[in-house]
């Protein structure tokens, strides 16, 4: 019996993850952006009821249809009960107040076309400028991707309390702003779209850069970021899609290498030593397709450049045949958008391939006192690797030892220690 229960709740969890965001979006449109939490409560309730019911009856043929119906009924009950307690700021608010129109109004809300558009509206609502960037990402994960607070805390390497605070603050900001549940029009659209893309990119990187690469949830973050970006590009009426296609291409290329980035002990494997046969060819093809679509418009964003760099890596037969010259040119372009120390660092690594180790080390030396770099582990590992190539194992070890001082993460520590061993053998 216990086994059946887990089985049922696994199935529900799977549904939950993929359908939660759709339902919350529809209900947020129904109740208005200021009642987002109410929408989440209704969906959660409906899912719980599903688990309770299906334990006895088994999962019905059309589980989502079942959950949609329960969610709709709960919505009707809440509106009837709280008629005068809540202010519904939505285009159907008027129809919710009438027993003749409430059900037809909700039925209309639950049609497939509305649901797709509502997820788009939800993304733009979560990325309202009244909400801080950190909270935007958390809110997007919570409302659109069906992530629980513990999962978000885990993904962000922070506490549940912290995430909860961010969510509470975000919802409060939306209420105070009297935010509308819509995709902005006119001059507001482009900056807001860029903000949405930035949030999706953060979401992706949160999954991609996390050091606990084994964790399934990290890959799910990446998948979700791709899924949400595809909602934008799938919308035929969307202008400025070039940046969205570029971001999608970038995410597909990077996600394609996900499995090859860590070994069985969760150690991070650098590009040079990755098993390229593990790269997901389907994602690479998708990435190339999206990259081609970006050329329909004459715009250039950071995403375009980063995606093209990634494309070079993904299509190189092996590490030795990487087209470093082209990649260096792309980094030169990137520097015009963003000349932050992180970009300088990555460019220097490419420079070491085209011009040699010495010029690369000179560049790295020039940024070593930058505050963002001083405790940035990849800076030390990159610089150490270059010194090692330059037959200066002693300096390489010194840099790694310095990095050890500020590294708390177990995986990173063991990575540094194993490199230290390699380097000191040559010393």
């Amino acid at each position: 019996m216990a086994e059946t229960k887990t089985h049922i709740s696994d199935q529900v969890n799977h549904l939950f993850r993929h359908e939660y965001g759709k339902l919350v979006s529809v209900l947020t449109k129904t109740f208005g952006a200021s009642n987002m939490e109410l929408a989440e409560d209704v969906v959660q309730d409906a899912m719980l009821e599903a688990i309770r019911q299906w334990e006895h009856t088994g999962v019905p043929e059309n589980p989502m249809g079942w959950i949609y119906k329960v969610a709709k009924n709960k919505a009707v009950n809440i509106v009837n009960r709280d008629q005068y307690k809540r202010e519904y700021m939505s285009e159907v608010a008027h129809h919710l107040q009438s027993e003749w129109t409430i059900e037809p109004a909700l039925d209309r809300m639950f049609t497939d076309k509305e649901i797709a558009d509502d997820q788009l509206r939800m993304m733009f609502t979560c990325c309202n400028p009244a909400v801080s960037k950190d909270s935007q990402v958390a809110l997007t994960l919570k409302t659109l991707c069906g992530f629980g607070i513990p999962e978000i805390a885990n993904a962000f390497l922070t506490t549940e309390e912290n995430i909860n605070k961010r969510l509470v603050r975000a919802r409060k900001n939306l209420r105070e702003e009297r935010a509308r549940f819509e995709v902005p029009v006119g001059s507001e659209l482009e900056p807001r779209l860029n903000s949405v893309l930035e949030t999706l990119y953060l979401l992706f990187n949160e999954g991609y850069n996390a050091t606990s690469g084994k964790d399934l949830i990290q890959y799910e973050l990446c998948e979700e970021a791709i899924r949400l970006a595809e909602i934008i590009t799938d919308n035929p009426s969307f202008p400025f899609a070039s940046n969205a296609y570029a971001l999608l291409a970038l995410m597909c290329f990077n996600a394609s290498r996900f499995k090859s980035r860590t070994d069985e002990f969760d150690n991070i494997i650098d590009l040079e030593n990755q098993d390229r046969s593990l790269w997901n060819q389907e994602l690479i093809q998708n990435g190339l397709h999206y990259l081609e679509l970006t050329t329909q418009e004459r715009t250039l964003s950071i995403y375009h450049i980063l995606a093209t760099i990634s494309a070079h890596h993904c299509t190189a037969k092996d590490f030795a045949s990487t087209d470093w010259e082209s990649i260096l040119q792309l980094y030169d372009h990137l520097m015009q958008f963003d000349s932050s120390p992180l970009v300088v660092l990555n460019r220097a690594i490419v420079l070491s391939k085209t011009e040699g180790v010495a010029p690369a080390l000179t560049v790295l030396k020039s940024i070593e006192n930058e505050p963002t770099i001083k405790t940035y582990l990849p800076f030390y590992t990159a610089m150490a690797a270059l010194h090692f190539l330059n037959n200066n194992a002693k300096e390489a070890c010194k840099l790694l030892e310095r990095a050890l001082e500020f590294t708390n993460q177990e995986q990173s520590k063991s990575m540094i220690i194993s490199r230290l061993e390699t380097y000191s053998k040559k010393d």
Partner: protein
Amino acid sequence: MREFMILVRTEGDHLAGLPAEAQQAHVQKIGAYIGGLMESGKLKGAQPFEQEGASFQGGKGVFKDGPFNESKEVIVGYFHITAENLEEAVAIAKANPMFEEGQATVEVRVVKQMEGIN
């Protein structure tokens, strides 16, 4: 596009005499009718009225109560719609499935719109 008010009068509760199943079927038909109006963007609002209410006539100081009485015809609700013209509004009003279940009196009125405001 013009706006219209469709005022519906029936004698008492027109569904009261129907068996539960028929009532349910009827409610579904009404739902589909209203959903269709929403879909076409023609419905601005529709609400039923409570049986409770007041009616009086006369002028200032000399009001006379009534006639208002549940057994007589009362306005049971309204539909606020948009339509091209009165003909279309009448056609919409006549398509209401409530006529399938009994007699009703319907008044379709054109909402007067002030130019430059609406």
